[in-house]
């Protein structure tokens, strides 16, 4: 156990957050969170509704910028580079830190165009042939290629919920991100579709740093190697997933994961 604890602070973290505070107007949503996200492990954020886990996730690719009243303090770095520095280009940042949302949100375009959307914006494909390659590769990685290869021109919204979510993951993958943030990616899906997404997360592990927010503790236990428990805007405990779920240190973590919360 103790040697696992040591491995918790990776030698070369992909993203680090130090004393991050987020305010929505006068209300403080995140109260000084410090955490390292590492490349080789899936990190899960768990915690009750309103604990700030989604808010914190959205600071990692500056999606909070879209909320006018939000203000972020502290430092967050990606490969050692401050992502809130004035020199950081948000467009570039979001290409490097992709995001998958709670509800599958494919654009009302064809499957092909959904995947091609990001590469087009970032000018990643020089020709149609390039784009075809990117689309196929992304769909393969998202585990969707076999299911949709014969109907790439169908609308993305015509797919089932689970397929839509994998399409959204494929869409995020298409711009070759380094980090993928997932905000409760399975909360709108049935158990089978959920299992497919979880398997996909396993396959993507190592290639991308993955951070997943989930309400479902079993899911956090299944897909992650690191688990962070948030409560009332604080990071209560961060540790190896198997430790958190068998022997949490903090009383609040224990009460939450054993179902004694509130």
């Amino acid at each position, binding site marked *: *156990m103790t040697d696992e604890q040591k491995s918790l602070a990776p030698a070369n973290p992909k993203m680090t957050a130090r004393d991050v505070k987020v305010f929505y107007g006068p209300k403080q949503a995140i109260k000084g969170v410090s955490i390292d996200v590492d490349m080789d492990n899936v990190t899960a954020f768990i915690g009750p509704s309103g604990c700030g886990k989604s808010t914190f996730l959205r600071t990692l690719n500056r999606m909070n910028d879209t909320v006018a009243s939000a203000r972020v303090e502290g430092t967050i770095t990606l490969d050692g580079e401050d992502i809130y520095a004035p020199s950081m280009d948000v467009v570039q940042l979001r290409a490097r830190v992709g995001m998958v949302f709670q509800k599958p949100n494919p654009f009302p375009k064809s499957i092909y165009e959904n995947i091609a959307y990001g590469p087009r914006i970032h000018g990643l494909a020089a020709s149609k042939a390039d784009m075809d390659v990117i689309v196929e590769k992304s769909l393969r990685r998202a585990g969707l290629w076999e299911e949709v290869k014969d109907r790439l021109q169908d609308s993305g919204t015509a797919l089932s919920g689970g397929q839509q979510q994998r399409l959204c993951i494929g869409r995020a993958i298409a711009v070759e991100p380094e980090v993928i943030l997932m905000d409760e990616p399975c909360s709108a899906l049935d158990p089978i579709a959920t299992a497919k997404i979880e398997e996909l997360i396993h396959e993507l592990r190592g290639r991308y740093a993955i951070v997943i927010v989930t309400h479902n503790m079993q899911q956090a236990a299944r897909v992650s190697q690191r688990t962070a428990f948030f409560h009332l805007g604080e990071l209560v405990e961060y540790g190896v997933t198997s430790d958190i*779920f*068998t*022997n*949490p240190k903090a009383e609040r973590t224990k009460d939450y994961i*054993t*179902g*004694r919360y509130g």
Partner: protein
Amino acid sequence: MAEHTIKAFDDEIDRLRGLIAEMGGRAEAAIENAMLALQRHDKVLAAEVVADDRRIDAIEAEVEKLVVEVIALRAPMANDLRDVIAALKIVSVVERIGDYAKNIAKRVPLVATNSRTVEPISLLPSMGQVAGEMVHDVLNAYAARDADLALAVVERDTVVDDFYNSVFRTLVTYMVENPKTISECAHLLFIAKNIERIGDHATNVAEMVYYAATGKTLPERERGPDIQMED
């Protein structure tokens, strides 16, 4: 400890703990009665001990069923998970303890004839008492989730081991001097061995209680050198 949001979960955990307490109480009584029957050479009491063991087996089966249900239906986590897993392991150990007590009781008629002449038998009741107390304490420790008490039980195992070693030497000496009593002494030796195993099992339970309570496993104990091979 705070209650679960789902009250039925608390009820199930309580029931589990209640069953284990009952089982422990029965095992404890079985040890006590078996030793009493041995001392008094009471065949009826011995037969009762043998008969009562069935109830212990039944409780084990019930706990196993309940544990599987709780794991399947409640998906326990953290200390709940450890509690439930400990319960599953504890019952199988306590069941073994019950079996040892039964085994002692079964030997009561066989050491009947000359028991008074067999001097070393005087050591056995005290040994049995220590082992019985270990079982008692370890179950209290489980009930109270008391890691310190569990540790104390672990430490007391050496007392039982020491008893066993001295009983063993005494009996061997005795058998050399009185070859006629070999058969009886062999039974007594087995009884001593049974009590020693009860102590070991109580220690195992203590380790599980410690894990359930703290989430840490005990470091490997240093055992005294065994003077003979395990049976």
